[in-house]
């Protein structure tokens, strides 16, 4: 009998302890419902909206990096003292911490997407569909950015041999993935985007709607030189988001924070004080490094008065004044259309696309014909096209148009990379800094290479110096 009492007592103590110790902490949860998981996505969507630490769509600081520091649209040697904190050239960014920051941050977003996709049990509800669609899209966009920055230029027919990035599809702290083939990376991005498109999410709150996913799919096909697929999707995008005329264009481009015109996705839709400080800092510092003469010369003297883009891009002191635009807008698809036509051996259609675009930018525009095409600009450092062929005047025109249209939108560095990754140098403080071919592909984080057996570093990054 006594034993029974003791047993009962122990059972009582045991059970009451469990209840006693089961305190739900405040402001903290083990997520289970779609509503709870949506908080993870809102966190990243908020980063996009306010332009903070956002590598998947970009922000002003990232545009400074790609356009002002890495590209050739700005003149490093003329930097005024206030711009001393700007990197001189791509090579300055290749130290361990800055080159791998983007890599780590993108994988942190991928991790949250994986948690949503893997752990969220709720299914079929409107909210769960939207959250899943966002997670797929966001994951695809992150892998797309990784592909562009950390993988070499895709070479048609060699996707299986070329290296992609490590693919992580589920949340697992123990997994130590090595690099996949480029094909596998491309396939994952494609299937994720398609999965997201299938949810038919059109709720602008989630930013990565069906249209945005299609736009990214077009970008993926274009980057990987799948011209026919890219062409079809570009045209679809242009249908849903048509180009607009010069005045509307000017209004659109000068609307810094509000999404307008044919902008499909953009950062800074609701910035906060901390990001506005960063934005203002970027606006301030860009003034200290003038726009390069080579870029300005892309505009003929006549175009400098007639082309709406010239007036919004630079002022007379050669300072860039175009508001930072980080996102996606229709003109990109027009340019893609032109280039796809060109590579699909349809030069007339290609020229027509370019004329279309130019007519909306230049007042009293006189269309180019195959015979009146301008000759190639000898100052242009891109000498071959994406297929490795020597530039033709038409291809030169397309690239030139792209350079002007996409100025300060984080495009130029990847254009250089895509079109032959040319080597070039800049002068600074009496020294010559050369952007070498390997520098177009950023290094994987050194620690990852060190602790993951079999993980291959990109070529050119052979020695690790720790100080």
């Amino acid at each position, binding site marked *: 009998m006594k034993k029974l009492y003791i047993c009962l007592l122990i059972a009582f103590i045991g059970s009451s302890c469990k209840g*006693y110790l089961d305190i739900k902490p405040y402001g903290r949860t083990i997520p289970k419902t779609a509503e709870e998981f949506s908080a993870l996505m809102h966190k990243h969507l908020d980063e996009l909206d306010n332009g903070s630490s956002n590598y998947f769509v970009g922000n002003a600081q990232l545009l400074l990096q790609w356009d002002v520091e890495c590209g050739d649209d700005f003149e490093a040697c003329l930097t005024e003292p206030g711009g001393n904190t700007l990197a001189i050239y791509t090579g300055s960014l290749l130290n361990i911490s800055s080159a791998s920051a983007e890599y780590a941050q993108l994988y942190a977003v991928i991790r949250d997407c994986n948690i949503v996709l893997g752990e969220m049990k709720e299914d079929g509800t409107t909210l769960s569909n939207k959250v899943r669609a966002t997670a797929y899209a966001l994951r695809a966009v992150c892998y797309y950015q990784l592909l562009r920055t950390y993988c070499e230029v895709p070479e048609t027919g060699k996707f299986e041999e070329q290296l992609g990035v490590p693919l992580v599809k589920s949340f697992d702290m123990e997994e130590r993935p090595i690099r996949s083939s480029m094909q596998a990376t491309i396939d994952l991005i494609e299937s994720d985007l398609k999965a997201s498109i299938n949810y038919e999410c059109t709720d602008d709150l989630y930013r990565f709607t069906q249209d945005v996913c299609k736009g990214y799919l077009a970008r993926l096909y274009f980057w990987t030189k799948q011209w026919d697929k890219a062409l079809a999707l570009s045209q679809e995008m242009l249908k849903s988001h048509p180009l607009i005329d010069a005045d509307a264009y000017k209004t659109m481009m000068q609307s810094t924070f509000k999404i307008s015109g044919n902008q499909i996705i953009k950062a800074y839709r609701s*910035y906060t004080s901390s990001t506005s400080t960063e934005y203002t800092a970027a606006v301030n510092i860009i003034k200290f490094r003038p726009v390069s003469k080579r870029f300005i010369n892309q505009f003929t003297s006549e175009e400098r008065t007639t082309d709406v883009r010239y007036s919004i891009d630079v002022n007379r002191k050669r300072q860039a004044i175009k508001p930072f635009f980080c996102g996606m807008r229709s003109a990109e698809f027009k340019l893609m259309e032109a280039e796809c036509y060109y590579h699909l051996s349809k030069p007339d259609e290609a020229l027509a696309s370019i004329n279309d675009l130019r007519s909306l930018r230049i007042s009293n525009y006189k269309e180019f014909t195959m015979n009146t095409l301008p000759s190639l600009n000898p100052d242009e450092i891109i000498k071959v096209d994406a297929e490795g062929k020597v530039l033709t005047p038409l291809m030169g025109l397309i690239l030139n148009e792209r350079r002007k249209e996409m100025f300060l939108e984080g495009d130029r560095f990847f254009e250089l990379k895509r079109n032959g990754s040319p080597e070039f140098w800049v002068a600074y403080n009496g020294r010559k800094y050369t952007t070498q071919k390997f520098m177009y592909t950023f290094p994987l*984080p050194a620690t990852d290479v060190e602790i993951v057996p079999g993980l291959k570093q990109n070529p050119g990054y052979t020695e690790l110096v720790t*100080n």
Partner: protein
Amino acid sequence: MNKLKFILFLCVCFISISLFSQQNTGKKNDAMILVKVVVVDKQGDPLPGASVKVSGKAQGVISDDKGRLSLWVDRNSLLVFSYIGMQQKSIKVTKPLSGVITLEDNVVSLDQVVVTGYTRTTKRRTTGSLATLSEKDLKTAPMANIDMLLQGKIAGVDVKAISGRPGETAKIRIRGTNTITGNAEPLWVVDGVPLQRDIPKISSSQILANNFNDIFSNGIAGINPNDIENVTVLKDASAAAIYGSRAAGGVIVITTKRGKEGKMNISYSANMSIVTSPPHNADLMNSKEKLAWEQELWNEFSQSHYANGEKYPVVGIVGMIRAGYGKYRGMTGTQQDAEIANLGAHTTDWFKELFQNSISQSHYLSFSGGSNRSTYYVSLGVSQNNGLVKKTNYDRYNMSAKIDMKPNDRVKLGFSFDMSMQKSTSPSLNVDPFQYAYFANPYERPFNSDGSYAADNTYFALRMANGAYDLPQPPSGYNIFREMDTTSSKSKNFTSSVIGNLDIRMTDNLSFEGMASYGYVVNNSDNINGKESNAAWNDRPFDSGSFTSKRTYGSIAQASSYNTNYNLRGQLHYFNTFKNDHYISVLLGSEIRGQYTKSIYEKRYGYDPVSGNSSMPTYPENANPSYSDLLSYAAIMDALSGQSISEDAFASFYFSMDYVFKQRYVASLTMRTDGSNNFGSKEQFNPTGSFGLSWNIDQEPFMKKFKPIISSMSMRTAFGYTGNINKSVYPQLVMDYESTFRKTDIDYYRMGSIRNAPNPRLRWEKNRDMKVSLDIGLFNERIHVQGELYDRRTSDAVTTITVPSTTGFSSQSYNTSELLNQGAELSLSAHIIKSSNWDLSMSANLSYNRNKLLKFNSPSSGLYAGNYVGYPLGSIFSGKMMGIDRKLGIYTYQARPDAVFSTPADRNNADNYLFYLGTSTAPTNGGYSINLSYKRLSINMGGSYSFGGKVLEDVSSPVSYSSISGTVVEPIPARINDLYVNHLNVSRNASKHWTPDNPITNGNPRIIDAYGEYLGLSNYMVSSSVITNASMMQSVSYFKLGSISLGYSLKESWIKKFCLSSLSLSVTMNNIFILTNYKGLDPETPGAVYPMARTYSMGISIGF
């Protein structure tokens, strides 16, 4: 204050009533007999002031100056004769007593009672390592808090001040640090209740780090040292295992005073202290020297470039004048010289300006007494500490009341009620005042001749003077005294606790002991940044990043927190002696404890201190706010207020058994398991335990013949486990909600993030502890020596390891590391002279702790925060300096024997020069005390020492070449080579340096302008700061005389006239001198921190 007076008044009423009630005791009748005796010592000398008490009654008298005493007592009552330093003598009187009563000298009582918080036992019956300090040992520093009073008094307990700020908590390590990322502080237990008075941390984007005063966040400072009866430190697992998972850092058990049977005892003590500058000073340049040095640098680095119209550096006020910067534009050479001469005419000693001599005081009043059925103890304490730094002070008010009752022979009841109120005030500075005092130029002045605040022209001027862009200073410039006058940070803490104890003797050998406690803590803090202050200028969210706005607005940040905590304990205690030889004591119990804390905070801009209201600024009129601006305005508003809540609960079961055989052999066993609410943990219950053996060798028959020499001898050994819970990591995937929301114009959405990589295999950190100790008492305990060796291995210590970026985390917490603490402790106490007039005793302790990281996966390649396998925590790796190279003028460093040099890059590679240089945690620590008394006069001296600690001097100048952005032409090897640090004040020896014309190698190395000429020095020598930091390394070994006090107690016969039972006076000096090689202010608190002040105190203590 009024409340306090009222309470005092009440107490005085209470005393008078009780005094009155005692007056009818001296009646004489048949049942009473006369006792008339002379109390003498062994030599036959009379003992004036010896007391006799009637046991169980509030009756007693004190002998006169001839040792005589007489009183009437009940027949058959028990008389207890006592005298300080003598053994008590009890005599049962059946007939009138007369003659001589001889009292024997007191031998140090062998069977010292020790309180572990769960049980009372005697030292001879324990196997654990514990040390006890009595009330007397805690009298060394009248104004200090309890933690600092422990400094240097117990072997193996390393107490180091973090700063000299009044009320600041010290850092305590008992037998080394045995966790890497967890909390290594010991557990404090007051009257059996573990302290849990945490106040939650506040975080918000608008609340700055210095906006809240968290000085009272751990609650130790609220204990009044005067209330303490004794302190027991439990050092090893055998002693501390009963505290389970919180005992890994050791346990400090405080027992407070309770009432004693007898007539009411009133005692009052007061103390007055003068706080003065610390004993050491920093050797800085005066105005003339600094100006001459700046001129020398101008001549060397700037003059020719300036003359040629090239880029030139501007350093110091001389640079600014010569270059015609700002208001010096257009001066002629003679005007410049005159300006410089004018500046040189005056030197400001910023330390003197900032430090003040202040007066602090404390008062303590207590009443105690009682009958054999109930006793009481009531105390009141006030302590007002004014800091060394102007406008810093700390006040404490305590009240404590305790009642113990014995309603019958089987039941004992006890109640304690404690209240304490603490207040701390200091300016809220965004520039550290000590850093400012170090670096502010001596020619700057605190005030203009008209008494207004003088702007500091140099402190923030380096960037602008050298052509870089900077946020402007407030229109009136920076002045540290304006900051002190216009900012304030006040914190008020009110703690109350109730403890109830119940002790029921169920049989003669079995008792139930229960304890319940409830505590309530309120903490309020106000932080005000006045409108004119620089702190307010730098905190203008509506004008951030604006270079043009001159708008100023102050702010107030307020927080109010409370903590409720409870502890419930019930235990059965069985003890018995069998057949004379076997003694057994078994304890079985369980307890629960928990705390709930909540903070509410808010911050208001545009605060008006006169009306207490605020006027929140908006965007300027012409700003034309967009929707985004409104959102960011709302975001600022959102972050201005909020709350923070945390809750803990623990449930524990424990068992302990002591077995003693023939008073010789002791075995003890302790087991405990703790469950906590640590979120999501599956391993909620963590068993810990220990086993110990002790051998009282002196009790052996064969030791009998050594008894005259060896009076006691015990050997102890114990083995045990304790645990440590690391609350910073979770085993499961836990999402934390952000404090902000994602907003759209119609709704807002919660945002969440996964802050820590989950680790399902996370466990408790375990300490395996082993020790062996030997205690020897010689010559009737006149000399006591204790030696101890211990070995403590921490396994499963939580550290972070690097995980590949593909996991989405950079690091993850794992139970991966192993840590070893090995050490030896030696304590010695000797009662050297003991005669009727003279008495001299000394004690000293020394401990050595070897800390070593046995297993550690570095989260990054290279050195990680001083953690390296095979070396102690906090180890310092750097270069070995070989002196200045005559040709290059820079420090050269010894190459590693395994270094290979084939390219210039190898010569610059830090890995080739890296050596282990020492540890920042001093391995050898100890303390000493000497007490000498002659008749009624006594002198006590005591102090502490610490050897083997190193520090990379972190008094880093707020300016350096990197303050000016630009492309570095010549890398700067070490801070000492940097030209730009000379913009602010430097130490006196800076001017003696290497130059190409005067290549001396016995001074400082060459000065280099990072933006000047390319010298290519990095082709010859390493320039990584990891190596070159070696030039900043300093030894922080010290030997400190912590206190000297002189006491005199007046003759009882004199004071009797004033109805006093005792009166003593004392004079104490604290922080008197330090022997050290350290160059800064105080080796105990290296760097630019609030130093320990030197204090002179006078005290009086009266007994009624």
